[in-house]
């Protein structure tokens, strides 16, 4: 499928919002989205979620003969794939440009920085070395693939354990995981990529752009750094001119971000290690919360409504004072009147407590019952109209509000009380004005309500 085109309206809105320093999801300019790292049951399998962008990383190893000119070094192989489920625009033949660019960047970041000690991967010089293969799959594209991919790659490499090997003379023994515990790879440092998106020819910059922001950006700067503040690779694309101090500022920001992310990674690795050692349950199945149907969760975005306050105050200051509200008393019978609405009835808990809020169970029932007693009219709770397309996110909480039919008798001697079923039932009290008599509602309603429940 072709990529959804960006409408003029969105582009204009996004650029204006960026000029006002506002992002679509309420983040600040230098804020990252929430990073979530979860591990699978195998060593070397991990999934990284950067907001909604998801990358799955898997590391595997194999014994092979080394390259001819590098007889004592192991082989590293990186591969990032853009799965078709990531975005409708990703088709088997179509994503070549983006794919090549991402793969090159990832290789430079991880291979050229020598983060993994390849000498330690050598088993028999010139004959057998370990080939480590890192496969990354993009599962969902919501912007900033490169950051998520680099985090996934390094986490998977840190998590991975290769089988233990011992060499005695000419004999090489490869131990299975049952015989000897597998051995972690020797990793010197953890390079992590941080992306900066530039807008309006370099005037505004955003860290960790999401998919909409990536569509309207002018250029992208990616800096890969480790926590020792060593830059592993820098790439600027899009053809924007950046000033020296802009690049320096970005590198400072990168230092801060990488420190935070590295801490997060180490904590995640430690947690997983602890769970495995204690024999607890681990794996992807455990990382998905139970009792939750939806896969995506909206994080609480702190909404800054500060200038809404000012605007609201302006409007209030200029507006006229509100008119006085005079509550009209409702005359039920000679000698009995009602002003306003009573307190919420505590009997309301007896009725189904699952009913929706605008269907308050208790009160109307009492008033209506006592009014209707003499006229012999059956009234049931006037529920709200059944919501035709009502989706509720929790498991199984579908509410079907039953509307029992309202039977009005034909006798002309009785007062006709017309109830409008589509209005809020709480207003019924003020609408039903022409009641014949009303007895004290204390005793009778108890009986009535029990009858009703039996009938229901």
């Amino acid at each position, binding site marked *: 499928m*072709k990529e959804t085109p960006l409408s003029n*309206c969105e582009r204009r809105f996004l650029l204006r*919002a960026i000029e006002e320093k*506002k992002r679509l999801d309420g983040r600040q300019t230098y804020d990252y989205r929430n990073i979530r790292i979860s591990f699978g049951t195998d060593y070397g399998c991990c999934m990284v979620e950067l907001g909604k962008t998801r990358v799955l990383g898997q590391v595997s190893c194999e014994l092979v003969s080394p390259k001819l000119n590098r007889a004592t070094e192991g082989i590293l192989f990186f591969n990032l794939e853009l799965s078709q489920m990531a975005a409708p625009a990703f088709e088997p033949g179509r994503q070549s440009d983006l794919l090549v660019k991402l793969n090159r960047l990832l290789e430079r970041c991880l291979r050229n920085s020598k983060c993994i000690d390849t000498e330690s991967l050598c088993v028999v010089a010139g004959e057998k070395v370990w080939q480590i293969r890192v496969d990354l799959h993009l599962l969902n594209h919501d912007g900033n693939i490169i950051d998520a991919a680099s985090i996934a790659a390094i986490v998977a490499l840190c998590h991975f354990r290769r089988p233990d090997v011992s060499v005695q003379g000419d004999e090489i023994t490869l131990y299975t995981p049952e015989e000897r515990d597998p051995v972690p790879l020797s990793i010197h440092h953890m390079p992590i990529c941080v992306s900066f998106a530039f807008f309006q020819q370099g005037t505004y910059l955003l860290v960790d752009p999401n998919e909409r922001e990536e569509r309207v950006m002018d250029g992208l700067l990616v800096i890969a750094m480790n926590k020792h503040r060593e830059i592993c690779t820098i790439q600027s694309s899009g053809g924007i001119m950046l000033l020296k101090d802009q690049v320096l500022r970005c590198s400072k920001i990168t230092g801060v971000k990488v420190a935070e992310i590295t801490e997060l990674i180490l904590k995640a690795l430690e947690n997983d290690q602890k769970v495995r050692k204690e024999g607890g349950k681990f794996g992807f199945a455990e990382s998905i919360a139970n009792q939750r149907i*939806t896969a995506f969760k*909206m994080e609480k975005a702190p909404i800054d409504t500060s200038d809404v306050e000012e605007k609201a105050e302006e409007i209030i200051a200029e507006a006229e004072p509100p008119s006085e509200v005079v509550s009209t008393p409702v005359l039920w019978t000679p000698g009995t009147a009602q002003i306003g609405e009573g307190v919420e009835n505590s009997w309301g808990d007896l009725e189904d407590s699952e009913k929706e809020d605008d269907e308050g169970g208790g009160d109307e029932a009492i008033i209506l019952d006592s009014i209707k007693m003499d006229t012999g009219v059956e009234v049931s709770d006037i529920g709200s109209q059944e*919501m035709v*397309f009502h989706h509720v996110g929790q498991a199984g909480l579908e509410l079907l509000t039953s509307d029992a039919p309202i039977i009005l008798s034909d006798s002309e001697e009785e007062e006709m009380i017309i109830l409008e079923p*589509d209005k809020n039932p709480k207003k019924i009290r003020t609408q039903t004005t022409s009641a014949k008599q009303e007895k004290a509602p204390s005793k009778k309603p108890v009986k009535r309500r029990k009858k009703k429940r039996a009938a229901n």
Partner: protein
Amino acid sequence: MAGPVSVAAEYLAGSRARAARTVLGQVVLPGEELLLPEQEDAEGPGGAGERPLSLNAGARSRVRVVCGPGLRRCGDRLLVTKCGRLRHKEPGSGSGGGVYWVDSQQKRYVPVKGDHVIGIVTAKSGDIFKVDVGGSEPASLSYLSFEGATKRNRPNVQVGDLIYGQFVVANKDMEPEMVCIDSCGRANGMGVIGQDGLLFKVTLGLIRKLLAPDCEIIQEVGKLYPLEIVFGMNGRIWVKAKTIQQTLILANILEACEHMTSDQRKQIFSRLAES
């Protein structure tokens, strides 16, 4: 939630058609067959062997039942083609057996005739515009399908503009066609959507929920700020409020409404109304 699904699984093992009436509101799975009310009597216990012979065999009343989305007619029965909850609507006036349909959730839109959608103009070629509606093919929109458009008086539509229109042709064999006028020739709200504002995408189920006749969410949102909203059945919503901040708040609220209970929603609205 385990209840209906386990019943469905049992059913599939037994592979006997169930009466549609008993399954209302429960989860149905693709491949299930449902019996309409008129057939239940014939298929009761005892089956064909004990059907009473009636003299006027052809006088059984035939009720016209409409098959909605997710259901297909299969002989005398209804065949479920999507998983979701089975719904039924009684006929408004007298005849007919009402409508049955399956409430399912998805994000990918399939053009349906009569749906009002928001499209993005991708190309102008001669007399027609190509409009992306989120389906597998771009829809075609003739420049004469706007209110008051003539050969001399062309509408002012640029590539990248947002259009609100409805489908007149939408089936799996042809490319969809849309228009921006109704059958009387009036725009009726359709046409080019103004500049500014924010377009965002949500699931199709949320749109149907928001467009339900007495949706509380829309009423509550309307009380917050003055705003303009356009809902497209293809999952696209266009919002515009006075400031960018308000527009962003609205967009986030509408996206989040899908996963919030009504209590949480009321909390958020009351907090926003205070500030």
